[in-house]
């Protein structure tokens, strides 16, 4: 496996959705290719740092204001029809 092939499989490898044979080939590549090892490791850190960060957290006061506004709009709007009254339709908004 070369570096280009490694990169192609990186997302599935990091997500743990890869067959055992490809996984073993990827891990073999990692033992001797330092660049791919670094890319793999730092890509994993990239995902973790975004997942753990508080980027665009909703402030408490704004959250309360939005919740009130949403519920007021819903009350003013017509009630959703009961599911049993509706024929099946596809799940698209």
């Amino acid at each position, binding site marked *: 496996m070369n570096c280009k092939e490694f990169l192609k499989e990186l997302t599935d490898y990091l997500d743990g959705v890869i067959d055992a044979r490809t996984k073993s080939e990827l891990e073999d590549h990692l033992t001797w290719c330092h660049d791919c090892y670094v890319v793999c490791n730092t890509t994993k850190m990239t995902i973790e740092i*975004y997942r753990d960060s508080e980027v*665009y957290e909703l402030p408490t006061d704004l959250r309360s204001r939005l919740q009130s506004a949403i519920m007021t709009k819903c009350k003013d709007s017509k009630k959703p029809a009961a*599911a049993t009254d509706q024929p099946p339709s596809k799940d698209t*908004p």
Partner: protein
Amino acid sequence: MTDIQTKVGEPVSDEMALVHAAKAGSLQAFEELVRRYDRNVFRIAQHITQNREDAEDVVQDAFLKAYQNLANFQENSKFYTWLVRIAVNEALMKLRRRRPGQMVSIDEDIQTEEDSVPRDVADWAPNPGQLFDQAELRDLLQKTIQGLPASFRTVFVLRDVEGLSTEETAAALGLSIPAVKSRLLRARLQLRDRLTKYFKVKNSGDGKR
């Protein structure tokens, strides 16, 4: 698909009980769904629109639209996936209105040979987040992700920040699974590349520029 535990994951059956109650007219049940997902919808909307006011509008419009169309939600997917799809559409509409001259589409697929080739392969400090204080880190993460095309950052946010599965992301965005995987790989690699300048090991671990 239902066995994927998302970051927002509550047991699906519980969620469906709320959906059923809301469909039967319970505003209280719908309010619980709002409380459960408003932070996620806000985060997604902010990432797509990159504008606080627009994101606030998207949160309100998406939940109102979900409420008005609850009868059309046929429960083949999680309520959250359905809601995300509504929110993404609303956010993209806002973005198009704000940037009328620019084509904004979730289908855009800007690909060059170079965009998945790592340019800077320097290793990072062991705890890169600790090189900055919380506010600085938040700013640089926001600034970095804002530089990605809308279609890339949307896929990254749904998959890696919100924890949707590949299948759920594809369903929410109306994309094929290979398209989601391809955008996700490039989004991850581009973010990694851009963050390397802040986090790489250099000058005794001082990652600040």
